[in-house]
């Protein structure tokens, strides 16, 4: 891409080092940290009985693409040789729903599955617009109980801990509460309900209050609906919410939330949990408890999840389900522990006459778990002399831009080894 004289961006052949907008290379130190997070989080999930699965990068638009919670314009679409629309997976929940309903359809429920995968989004308009990023998460399929909701939230908290996120909170809400409340306050007025929800979904509280003022409503109802914007905090929020209105749906949502709260107390993780009834997930996708995790020092959520009891039926195996995804690429920014201390990096240089001995020793050290780099060197070169002198000392040193902890020299003269 280049800028022409009148400021228009002209598409020209990219320079050799360019890559498409929104994708990233990860260099060794970042990969080491990413792998450490991935390993520790997946291990944490394994200990909770979740088994890891892999699904393909490509899926059909008409199946997984349509079922996914990602809005249509954010899906990466392409055509295959037959002209069928293919999508790059935008999240892992729909592919897993497809597998649970097909390959695993004879496996009894509940199923506990985990994943770590790269996912793709086109034209991401949110800040930090990555077109490809990593997610690590779980799906718990076949359990409708608040126990299951709480299990997934508690596992999200354990996973954030395992990832090394130093300080975080998880806000928990329930889509049934607002649905019930709106249904009661505006019976049959679907359009008005939708418009109020869309203001909340866009986080536009000013627009929401203005819309309430324009509606014909009893003052008490209006006050109640305005009051939900304040329903954030701890357990007391549930008690406040129970007093609002008399909708049975809303009350049943709050009772579920209270029960999840109690289970989380039994897990001993309440200090990380906030109740937030203003937290709106996508109404068309989530069907119950929803939650989102926030880390200090990061402006974007680090995980999100919730109950989606309608998705599996789209793949022909109706079942309740809940799950979450960690936004692993963002966690990389805030996770505290660095990559594992590598240590044990050994350089073996050898002259041709001792090649066999050098390579046998390298293999032996590798079998012990050390990192070993070998290099053939001419004993007549000045480098050989410098390394020979170095071999007597025990300290880290650099050779050709890499750090090593120890050095072995094989060549001329017997036993010339450090």
């Amino acid at each position, binding site marked *: 891409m280049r800028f022409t004289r009148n400021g228009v961006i002209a598409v020209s052949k990219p320079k050799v080092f360019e890559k498409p907008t929104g994708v990233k290379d990860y260099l060794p130190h970042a990969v080491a940290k990413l792998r450490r997070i991935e390993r520790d989080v997946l291990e944490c999930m394994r200990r909770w009985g979740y088994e890891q699965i892999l699904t393909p990068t490509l899926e059909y638009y008409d199946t997984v693409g349509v079922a996914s919670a990602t809005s249509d314009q954010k899906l990466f679409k392409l055509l295959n040789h037959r002209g069928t629309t293919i999508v790059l997976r935008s999240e892992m929940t729909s592919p897993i729903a497809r597998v649970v309903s097909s390959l695993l359809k004879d496996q009894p429920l509940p199923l506990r599955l985990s994943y770590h995968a790269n996912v793709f989004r086109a034209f991401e*308009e*949110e*800040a930090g617009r990555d077109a490809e990023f990593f997610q690590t998460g779980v799906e718990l399929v076949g359990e409708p109980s608040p126990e299951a909701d709480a299990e997934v939230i508690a596992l999200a908290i354990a996973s954030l801990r395992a990832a090394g996120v130093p300080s975080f909170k998880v806000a928990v809400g329930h889509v049934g509460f607002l649905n019930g409340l709106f249904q009661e306050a505006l019976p049959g007025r679907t359009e008005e309900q939708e418009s109020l929800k869309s203001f909340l979904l866009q*986080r536009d*509280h*000013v627009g929401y209050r203005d819309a309430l003022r324009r509606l014909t409503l009893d003052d008490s109802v209006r006050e109640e609906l305005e009051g939900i914007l304040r329903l*954030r905090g701890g357990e007391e929020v549930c008690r406040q919410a129970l007093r609002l209105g008399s909708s049975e749906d809303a009350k049943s949502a709050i009772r579920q939330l209270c029960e999840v709260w109690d289970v989380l107390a039994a897990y001993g993780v309440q200090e990380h949990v906030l109740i937030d009834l203003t937290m709106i997930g996508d109404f068309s996708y989530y069907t119950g408890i929803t939650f989102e995790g926030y880390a200090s020092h*990061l*402006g974007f*959520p680090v995980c999100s999840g919730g109950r989606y009891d309608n998705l599996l039926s789209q793949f022909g195996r109706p079942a309740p389900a809940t799950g979450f995804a960690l936004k692993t690429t963002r966690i990389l920014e805030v996770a505290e522990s660095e990559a594992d201390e590598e240590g044990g990096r050994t350089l073996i240089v050898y002259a041709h006459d001792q090649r066999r001995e050098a390579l046998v020793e390298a293999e032996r050290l590798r079998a012990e778990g050390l990192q070993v780099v070998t290099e053939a060197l001419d004993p007549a070169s000045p480098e050989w002399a410098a390394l020979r002198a170095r071999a007597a000392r025990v300290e880290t040193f650099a050779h050709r831009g890499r750090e090593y902890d120890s050095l072995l020299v094989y060549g001329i003269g017997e036993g010339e080894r450090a």
Partner: protein
Amino acid sequence: MTESGALKVAMPKGRIYKQASKLFREAGLPIPEDFDDSRRLIIPVPEANMEFIMAKPVDVPTYVEYGVADIGIVGKDVLMEENKDVYELLDLAIAKCRMSVIGLPGWKPVIHPRVATKYPNVASQYFRERGQQVEVIKLNGSIELAPLIGLADRIVDMVETGQTLKENGLVEMETLFSVTSRLIANRVSYRLKNGAIQELCDRLGRKIAAVQG
């Protein structure tokens, strides 16, 4: 985004700052009226447990979206144009004006309508939703010039009193929406600094309600 510590506030420099700081003071927050050294970009206000980040108004939503500021004050015009993922918490009812379509008196439809504006997203959406095809031209200032010299037949711009329009012989044709300043919050701060943000909202909200009666 620490859970304790000063609230980071992205404040728009210039006209809106004066009105916003007045509102804050009236709501009982000890905020200085103006700062002697206007070149300072980060200004601690320990009396109110805040830190002001002095920003160009159009950049305020960006600072808040990325979370480098917890909350911010910004005009609805900028929010509509920038379309950032932030909470819009409160209408501060200051810096009142409106977004309007403006043209020369006796405007008649032309074959290739052109609209000059500082708000290309807002203008494009407005005309698109009405099924009108117009070419939107982005300008960065002196928008009123465009119809006078024939660059565009209409403009979309903010109108406060209408004085500038009158002086340039232009008329307001349609109003898109009315504009006031808004209090916005980052998605994470809104939860992790809930207490401080809610208290600020309540204080400002009471003051605004009292003024509006």
